[in-house]
């Protein structure tokens, strides 16, 4: 690389920063890199910048720009001549400070985030970038430091982390609660000689639990992603993961729709395990879902259920089970419908749930 023609192909100071290597006067030089242009750029940038001189005792700041004054609340004459550590305070993480010391000693580029203190005692999270600057002969001349206030990012990150931890805790406890409910139902059923009833109750309760569980993260948004709820309700019926095909487009719905939807899918899957596509070795089910307009021109969520490859069927069976009666009634409370048709190669079902506009 040759110098001084300003053809735009050489690395700028900014680029040198991004490559994470020290500024090099030889390679990173450009016609305006010193003097008037540099000073004007430094004065205008919103990035707080300082230079320290490691050849002077205690590596004091020898230059800082307006943004540095604004960020820290100190005036230039209070800043120049002091070591950068005057921005630290009791809550500054000393392990981060040690990293800075090491980087200065080994003349390396470093980016750390540390808590700094303004003149008025208030704190800010400082994304500090520092690196050595060498002169034309390759001798260490300055340390460059840029400071960026990332307090907002820190807060948002902490809140997000907290929210995630809470969602996980709630999810974990909810699972435990459902497991315990399962225990009570089973034990009671056993004690009262009503195992058949208790296991039916339990299957439905557990299906509901699975339907609600993946909605926890989402529910705060007001709607939940349908696909996650559908998958978790149906997963236990397809332990190998090769019998039920899922096709969805990320459609969302109200959390309240989950119970009716979850129980209906559970009934369909139970039915398929006993009589339909899951009752033999190679039947398959395709479950697809999308938004559409229903006959009253309302937006609706539609879940299509298509069984193939199960035992041949000849028309509607005489008894279709109390589970479906419950499911249809539940759907009706949400103004939804369940339509079932018995094709020769398997059951087709369509769950339709209006979306609140």
């Amino acid at each position, binding site marked *: 690389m040759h110098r001084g023609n300003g053809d735009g192909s050489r690395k700028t100071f900014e680029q040198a920063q991004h490559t994470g290597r020290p500024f090099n006067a030889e390679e990173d030089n450009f016609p305006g890199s010193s003097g008037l242009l540099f000073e004007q750029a430094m004065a205008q940038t919103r990035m707080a910048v300082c230079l320290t001189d490691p050849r002077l005792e205690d590596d004091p700041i020898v230059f800082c720009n307006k943004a540095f004054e604004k960020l820290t609340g100190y005036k230039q004459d209070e800043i120049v001549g002091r070591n950068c550590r005057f921005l630290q305070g009791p809550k500054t993480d000393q392990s981060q400070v040690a990293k800075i010391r090491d980087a200065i000693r080994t003349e390396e580029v470093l980016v750390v985030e540390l808590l700094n203190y303004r003149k008025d005692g208030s704190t800010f999270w400082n994304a500090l970038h520092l690196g050595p600057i060498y002169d034309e002969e390759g001798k260490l001349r300055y340390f460059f430091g840029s400071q960026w206030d990332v307090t907002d990012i820190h807060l948002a990150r902490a809140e997000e982390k907290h929210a995630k931890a809470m969602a*996980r805790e709630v*999810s*974990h406890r909810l*699972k*435990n609660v*459902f*497991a*315990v*409910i*399962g*225990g*009570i139902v*089973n*034990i009671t059923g*056993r004690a009262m000689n009503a195992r058949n009833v208790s*296991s039916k109750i*339990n*299957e439905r309760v*557990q299906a509901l*639990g699975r339907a609600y569980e993946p909605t926890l993260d989402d529910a705060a948004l007001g709607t939940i992603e349908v696909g996650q709820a559908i998958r978790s309700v149906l997963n*236990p019926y397809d332990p190998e993961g090769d019998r039920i095909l899922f096709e969805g487009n990320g459609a969302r719905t109200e959390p309240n729709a989950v119970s009716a939807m979850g129980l209906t899918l559970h009934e369909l899957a139970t039915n398929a395990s006993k009589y339909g596509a899951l009752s033999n070795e190679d039947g398959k089910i395709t479950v697809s879902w999308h938004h559409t307009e229903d006959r009253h021109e309302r937006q609706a969520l539609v879940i299509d259920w298509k069984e193939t490859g199960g035992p041949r069927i000849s028309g509607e069976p005489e008894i279709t089970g109390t589970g479906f009666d419950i499911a249809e009634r539940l759907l009706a409370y949400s103004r939804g419908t369940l339509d079932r048709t018995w094709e020769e190669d398997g059951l087709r079902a369509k769950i339709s749930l209006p979306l609140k506009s």
Partner: protein
Amino acid sequence: MKCILILEDEPLIAMDLQLAFEDAGAEAVVTVSCDEAFEAMDGAEFDGAVLDVNLGKGETCEPVAVELRARGVPFLLHTGDLDRAGEALRDLDAPILAKPSGADDVVSRLFGLNGQLQPA
């Protein structure tokens, strides 16, 4: 008669599992901590085990899982939150049954379809 070790600190789940194994014609010993599980393993040979992963106050079933693996005893991890299991537990790559799942599912999963215990 097959003898199954259950490590579970939630009483209702433990009772449900124990009864389900008894219904399936097996004997089930319930322990509530790793210490108890090791004590039980001292005096008996087990044919299989069901381990709750999180046993409260940061205790996990990991040491018991490691010991069972060393003895070649097949076991299931029965958990609501595998993320909390340590690396070592994940490295064991044991079969996992997510909580909540019916006690009968736990039994059939451990026993396999033909009544044989699944290999560890």
